[in-house]
């Protein structure tokens, strides 16, 4: 990685940004989303937060420009130069411009706005171009998949050289900056590998772990089939954090980092949304587990050693939460990786163990190996 001469950086830990001019090739909501995700890629690695403003001057002014647009760096029409940004500082400092002559998209066609924006915001925060071809700050365009994106190591080193690391927050103790571990030939019955998420989906139970998920009929322990997550849920790719289904609504919810997807069966219903729709505080950046309680019509979300309760009828987070998990669910030890309600019992999955919890007795009534649920 390389820094600019004099190593300019922002001296405050909350920056404002404003999109003053949009492009016609994407909806403004899509542009907002791509910009938010691109900034999130950096804020997950350093103690910097970004606040969107819609009026007046912001630290980072973002706009789509054509040809000569008054900053002595005219754009050159389709291809060639795609965008540029200015190093941290007052006035133009941090400002980011995109060539409006390009075809900007959220996909792999044209030029992916998330990919280019994430690169330019590296400049806006103080990084120069890197000679490492795998780095986001390498000068030439290379498509990056926006969902589940992890900053490459070279960029993490560079930006943390300027701002230091972000202290990890409550939630799954994963290292968000390292690409997910790719087991070469995973032992599917490895009892030490926890499930990432468990949910009902229609008549089947789904177990998620890394890049794989298992489907099983609730009452059968035979015929349990592993397959890759991308084969059924391409947008999810891998490492689902949590999942639950509201059967009477015919909808299931899948969580990854600060985003969630809604499906009907295996059909994605639109782009990902933000978990803050549910009313989580901003410091929650990921969910460990979720379980829908059919009778109460409430969904419990587990984060670190606390849990929240969301009223699905009122579509509102309940007051007086979060609460401590161990105080409310005696007998369930360790971080909760996944949870699912079946026949009135809640099954908590924590590491190698699965606890059967009786909500009436308010106690654990049996403990089995997690992997026994997938026939191991």
């Amino acid at each position, binding site marked *: 990685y*390389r820094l*600019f*001469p004099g190593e300019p950086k922002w001296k405050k830990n909350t920056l404002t940004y404003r999109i003053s001019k949009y492009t016609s090739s994407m909806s403004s909501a899509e542009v907002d989303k791509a910009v938010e995700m691109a900034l999130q890629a950096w804020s997950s690695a350093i103690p910097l937060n970004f606040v969107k403003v819609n009026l007046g001057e912001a630290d980072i002014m973002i706009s789509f420009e054509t040809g000569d647009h008054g900053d002595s*760096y005219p*754009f050159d029409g389709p*291809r*060639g*130069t*795609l*965008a*540029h*940004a200015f190093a941290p500082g007052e006035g133009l400092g941090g400002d980011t411009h995109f*060539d409006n002559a390009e075809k900007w998209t959220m996909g792999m066609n044209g*030029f992916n706005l998330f990919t*280019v924006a994430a*690169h*330019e915001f590296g*400049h806006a925060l103080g990084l*120069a*171009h890197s*000679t490492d*071809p795998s780095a986001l700050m390498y*000068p*030439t*365009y290379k498509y990056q998949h926006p969902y589940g994106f992890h900053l490459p190591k070279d960029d993490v080193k560079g930006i943390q050289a300027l701002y230091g690391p972000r202290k990890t927050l409550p939630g799954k103790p994963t290292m968000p900056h390292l690409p997910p571990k790719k087991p070469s030939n995973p032992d599917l019955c490895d009892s030490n590998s926890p499930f990432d998420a468990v949910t009902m989906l229609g008549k089947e139970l789904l177990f998620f772990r890394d890049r794989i998920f298992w489907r099983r009929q609730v009452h059968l322990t035979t015929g349990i089939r592993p397959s890759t997550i991308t084969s059924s849920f391409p947008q999810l790719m891998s490492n689902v954090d949590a999942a639950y289904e509201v059967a009477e609504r015919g909808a299931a919810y899948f969580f990854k980092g600060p985003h969630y997807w809604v499906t009907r069966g295996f059909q994605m219903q639109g782009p990902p949304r933000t978990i803050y729709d549910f009313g989580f505080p901003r410091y929650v950046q990921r969910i460990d587990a979720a379980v829908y309680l059919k009778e109460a019509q409430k969904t419990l979300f587990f984060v670190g050693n606390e849990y929240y309760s969301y009223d699905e009828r009122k579509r509102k987070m309940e007051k007086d939460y979060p609460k401590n998990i161990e105080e409310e669910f005696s007998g369930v030890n360790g971080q909760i990786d996944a949870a699912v309600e079946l026949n009135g019992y809640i099954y908590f999955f924590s590491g190698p163990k699965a606890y059967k919890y009786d909500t009436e007795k308010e106690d654990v009534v049996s403990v089995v190996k997690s992997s026994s649920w997938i026939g191991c």
Partner: protein
Amino acid sequence: APSLFAATSRTSRNNYHLAQAYLEKFYPKKGEHQVGEMVARGGNSMIRKIKELQAFFGLQVTGKLDQQTMNVIKKPRCGVPDVAN
């Protein structure tokens, strides 16, 4: 100028101009052209810049506008210079 070409053709002339504009934009040198200073068009400074570009992108450093170098020059990219000035 002929020594820069790996091949001779109209394409090469176009490549030369494209490369020249690219190098001026992304590999400027601080205080390179003093006002009034006489510099031969192209000449050593261009070869030096080509070498700088090839080193930056991990290409074989030849100082020539060979195919690999031209492939990099034609790729869509960020407008911030590779060498900060």
